[in-house]
């Protein structure tokens, strides 16, 4: 084993990612803004600087540990630079801590406190405050609090592969903004909120709906019901000093009652319902030769991602609504009658680990007569804030029990919060149903785990079934591309956008340690064990719901209440401009004239194509179109002829493809 010296102590190391991780082993935690174990190393905040003999001042995060290295973490120079750096940040940005939503959870605040900074020697920025971006339902961006650590940029790129925000401008004018300074709602953002999860300050935070919820609770005419997602119960305790992974559904129920909610239900109930519908959809597809792979559709960020990037996959997505959407739908439809109340007075509040659920609740498909089925969506964080507002000592509350009928769930509905949980819950249903005998084992360890892409092969009733479990949209894109290229095949794919699934959602309490997520995951699997039932199909209240209200699984009413459809949200999908357009055309040539293709010679291709068509008198056979961005800018110019897409095109390539296709047409004729 290799060793090095840190502050006169010899420390051994093996495969630590960097010096920072080795230093951690000596019970010293260097504070940083830009280091996240799950993101790439950036080296920008300059707070983890150390002095290395012979190499001067280096950032520990970017330095590989080496045998015999002599490292100092606490020298006068280092203290001065760290102090200066933080003072510089404090001078530049808005830090009205007491009124900030990130108050007491802000890294800038805690680092300034830890470094003992009591005054700032530099001039406070006199820049005119920039407007706060409130365009998204999921997150709000306050650029005045951004310290440009780049964590959000990397999270969006590296976890989700989206890049909705990036750096712009130089020097002191640098900013993190959506493309061209547009608001966040008008770019590719999928509302996952991972940017807000990693943001060390209050620059990106989940949008709050607390005010609206209080208004409803204060209104004596309203019947306000709450339902909360599986992963909320293993995370909220962290807000009240409990260890991460503490399983506290009963305390949540108590707190909700104390806050004035009339009924407390469990989203896990509709998770069970989702499994019944979704597993049946899978079985039906198998029986009837439907489209595969079948993707899960519980995660709203994932759904939005497919709508924006892969609308062609919509038939592959399960048409089932998410548990939240199902809950809203059945509540609004059946609860007024069950509770004997006026439907107008029913308010449904959903408590989620997720920011994207706020967007999901506002989707037109999930409204009834123009009203949202879920009237409000609170994140775990907001819910904790409400509890704190009332001074409720959450950690000492006595557990209480859920209200029937939507408060009863099985363990299958609880493990939904973990990546792999939906798959496991579905398997508990599918295997029993297809093999038509009681399930021998409940746990499907093969779909559990932490890796971002996990694959499993099962044999169900003698048939091989290939399964993939993915978290992170960047991973999802990678798998989709491999599927599209024919390289791999799966029957069933679960996709969750956030790391680890919903337990790692952006609405959850802010956490910095990787163990936190592991503990939450373990908490959910333990919660499953603690319940009496583990299979959605065993939930008597679900059975009753079908018997009394929905009727047949996957039937007409089920389709109306529990299923949905998707939209094409590709930003550029219109037809382009016709240059040659006849009714008789047998072939259409679309030439992309978007900026990048144009710069790379699309104009020349267009010119030569038009010449070719007129010279060969093909005007009645070939239509020519100018298209605006085929979203293939890396490989431009792009030209499509019939169904064939030519990338890195030039006139010669395009014309020879056209000739080949024309020949085929003549042969066929």
């Amino acid at each position: 084993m290799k060793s090095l010296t840190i502050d006169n102590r010899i420390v051994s190391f093996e495969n630590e990612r960097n010096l920072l991780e080795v230093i951690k082993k000596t019970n010293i935690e260097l504070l940083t803004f830009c280091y996240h174990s799950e993101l790439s190393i950036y080296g920008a905040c300059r707070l983890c600087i150390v002095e290395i003999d012979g190499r001067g001042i280096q950032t520990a995060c970017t330095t590989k540990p080496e045998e015999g290295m002599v490292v100092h973490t606490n020298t006068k120079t280092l203290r001065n630079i760290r102090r200066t750096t933080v003072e510089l940040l404090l001078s530049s940005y808005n830090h009205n801590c007491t009124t900030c939503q990130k108050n007491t959870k802000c890294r800038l605040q805690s680092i300034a406190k830890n470094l003992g900074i009591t005054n700032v020697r530099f001039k406070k920025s006199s820049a005119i405050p920039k407007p706060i971006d409130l365009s998204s339902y999921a997150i709000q961006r306050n650029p005045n609090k951004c310290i440009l650590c780049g964590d959000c940029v990397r999270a969006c790129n590296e976890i989700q592969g989206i890049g909705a925000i990036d750096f712009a401008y130089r020097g002191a004018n640098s900013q993190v903004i959506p493309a061209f300074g547009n608001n966040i709602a008008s770019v590719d953002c999928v509302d996952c909120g991972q940017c807000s999860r990693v943001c060390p300050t209050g620059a990106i935070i989940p949008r709050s709906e607390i005010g609206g919820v209080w208004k409803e609770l204060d209104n004596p005419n309203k019947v306000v019901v709450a339902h909360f997602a599986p992963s909320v119960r293993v995370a909220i305790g962290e807000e009240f000093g409990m260890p991460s992974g503490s399983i506290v559904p009963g305390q949540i129920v108590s707190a909700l009652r104390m806050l004035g909610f009339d009924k407390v239900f469990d989203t896990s109930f509709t998770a069970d319902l989702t499994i019944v519908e979704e597993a049946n959809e899978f079985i039906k597809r198998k029986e009837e030769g439907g489209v595969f792979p079948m993707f899960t559709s519980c995660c709203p960020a994932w759904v939005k991602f497919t709508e924006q990037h892969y609308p062609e996959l919509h038939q592959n997505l399960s048409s089932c609504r998410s548990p939240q959407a199902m809950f809203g739908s059945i509540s609004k439809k059946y609860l007024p009658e069950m509770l004997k109340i006026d439907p107008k007075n029913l308010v449904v509040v959903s408590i989620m680990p997720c920011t994207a659920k706020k967007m999901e609740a506002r989707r037109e498909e999930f409204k009834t007569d123009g009203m949202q089925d879920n009237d409000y969506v609170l994140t775990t964080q907001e819910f904790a804030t409400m509890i704190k507002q009332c001074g409720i000592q959450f950690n000492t509350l006595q557990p209480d029990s859920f209200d029937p009928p939507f408060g009863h769930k099985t363990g299958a509905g609880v493990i939904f919060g973990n990546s792999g949980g939906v798959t496991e819950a579905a398997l508990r249903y599918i295997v029993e149903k297809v093999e038509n005998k009681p399930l021998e084992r409940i746990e499907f360890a093969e779909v559990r785990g932490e890796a971002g892409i996990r694959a499993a092969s099962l044999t169900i009733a003698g048939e091989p079934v290939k399964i993939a479990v993915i978290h992170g949209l960047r991973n999802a894109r990678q798998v989709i591309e491999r599927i599209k290229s024919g390289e791999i095949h799966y029957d069933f794919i679960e996709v969750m956008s956030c790391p680890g699934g919903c337990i790692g959602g952006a609405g959850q309490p802010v956490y910095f340690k990787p163990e936190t997520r592991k503990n939450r995951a373990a908490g959910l699997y333990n919660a499953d064990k603690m319940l009496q039932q583990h299979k959605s199909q065993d939930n008597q209240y679900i059975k009753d719901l079908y018997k009394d209200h929905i009727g047949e699984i996957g039937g007409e009413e089920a389709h109306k209440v529990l299923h949905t459809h998707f939209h094409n949200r590709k930003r550029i999908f219109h037809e382009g401009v016709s240059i040659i357009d006849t009714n008789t055309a047998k072939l259409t040539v679309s030439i992309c004239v978007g900026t990048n293709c144009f710069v790379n010679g699309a104009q020349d291709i267009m010119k030569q194509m038009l010449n070719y068509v007129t010279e060969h008198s093909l005007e009645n056979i070939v239509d020519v179109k100018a298209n605006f961005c085929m979203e293939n800018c890396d490989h431009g110019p792009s030209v499509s002829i019939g169904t064939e897409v030519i990338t890195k095109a030039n006139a010669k390539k395009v014309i020879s493809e056209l000739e080949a296709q024309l020949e085929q047409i003549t042969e066929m004729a």
Partner: protein
Amino acid sequence: MNNTMNIDTLTQIADKYKSQMTKITRRVTICGGTGCIANGSQNVYDELVKQLALTNIDAVVDLKFEDNKDHTYVMHSGCQGFCQMGPLVTIEPDNIQYVKVKPADVSEIVLKTLAGNSIVERLLYHDPVTGQKFNGTKDIPFYARQNRTVLKNIGHIDPADIKAYIGQKGYFSAYNAWTNMTDEDICNDMITSGLRGRGGGGFPTGRKWNLTRIEKNEKKYIICNADEGDPGAFMDRSILEGNPHSVVEGMMIAARAIGANEGYIYVRTEYPLACKRIKQAINDAKNIGILGDDVFGTSNGFKITVMEGAGAFVCGEETALIASIEGKRGMPRPKPPFPAQAGLFGKPTCINNVETLSAVPLIFQNGPTWFKAIGTEKSAGTKTFAVTGNVANTGLIEVPFGTTLREIVENIGGGVLTEDGKVDMDAFKAAQIGGPSGGCLTKEHLDMPLDYETLTAMGAMVGSGGLVVMNDQTCIVQIARFFMRFTQNESCGKCTICREGTKQMLALLDDIIEGNATLQTIDLLEELAHSVKIGSLCGLGKTAPNPVLATLKYFRTEYDEHVINKRCPTKRCKALTSAEILADKCKGCRVCIKVCPEGAITGELKKPHTINKALCIKCGACAQACKFNAITGVA
């Protein structure tokens, strides 16, 4: 593809050029550098060609003639260096250089010189101090005292003609390197030559090549860093404009040495002429089979792509430059890994500056020991400088390392220009060397030999070679602020201490200039400067405080004067000035009263006037108008 250059063809091209040049009895070279073009040299060229056509002089504008007659050759060159005096027209072999030539002067040049073999005296260069006339580049001190090696062909050959380059032994070194030398030999020769990077760092080029050479990877890249961004520097631009093939050949030799088959030239798009010339050079080299899939019959290929950058200073930093070529935002990343290990697209990459690469063919033509013998022991060879500021002769120069600052400013530069346009070496205050990353040198450094080590020891750096001369009417705090503003605007914004630190340093300098500072301001400025210098991620941040630190080191009293007595010794800082009329000098002529835009001056005719300081806006109009130098305190 059978388009491969071989030694016979190369020799044929060279021989043909040489034999054609023997038929050129007289060569008229009109400078086509950016400065001269901006001053109208293209019009001079057009006029000359037009007028020559009307005479019986057998003038040609290219070397396409096949006859055996004698010709006068009219051609464009790259930057001839003496930018202050442009447009330049050089006539050889007569050793004539006409300066500040206008189209209207052309007829006289044609009549007297080209037809009549006499000199147009009024167009010659006159020494601004002595008034002495000089005929041509052989005796004009600006040229005579230089040692032009890298710049030698610039101004002599047509940069747009590959044959002219080949005619000057061009591409023979590349041929030799590709066909007769091992990669190791090439690196060893480079190490022997002592060439160090001309872009700023001064890392030995041979060692850099060797570090890339020893990396095992099928794909490697050579990048030419042409992202010259220092204010006042134009060495690399001039080389690309004036002798682009030397850069292509340098890259070929480097590619052979490190085992690269692909090269990039990263040049800023705001250098349109340089972009055009280098692209043409690459195309020409490709068309005659020098670049391609089978270089010199070795069955190894080499191609070069020109990448136009958007003109961000930080992209001169290696890792930011690589990011920019990769299509990412130009932001540096921490090193290691160094580009030699993981550079462009993750492959081993060697990045050299334009001037470095253009010196390479010369080293292989003349031998590494020839190069090593020029300059000083640790800093071999010559260095180009773009001399600007308060100096009589601004322009592009090249001197061996070890040359003194005095030689450059006084003898080559012609001395320091005072505020009233006179030349006076005593007015020398400082010279900023190395651009915004460098520092200033003062009178006490005038006789020190300039090389990498001495400059670093003095708190400056060679940098890419910008040299701004300042006279005694320059406020040093304002100079520091000028460069700080530049680096602040150009900081990529990635690392906190550079982005925010430069901003606050700028604010502190503003405070000093605005009269809002105390001695603590200077202390804070100095402390912050040290923190930014050692705490920043990349070279930009690490060197950004240099102008502040150097000026604080040499001109502390001037800073102190600003904050203690609230006085700017050069009267450049308006907030610290206050206009005053000297009663003993004022004749009471009322001129100042008339020009004052604020009505701040009152007084009766023939009696000393007074200024109401509350109304005065310190515009200086009164001082300018006063014929008796009776108004002080405003510049």
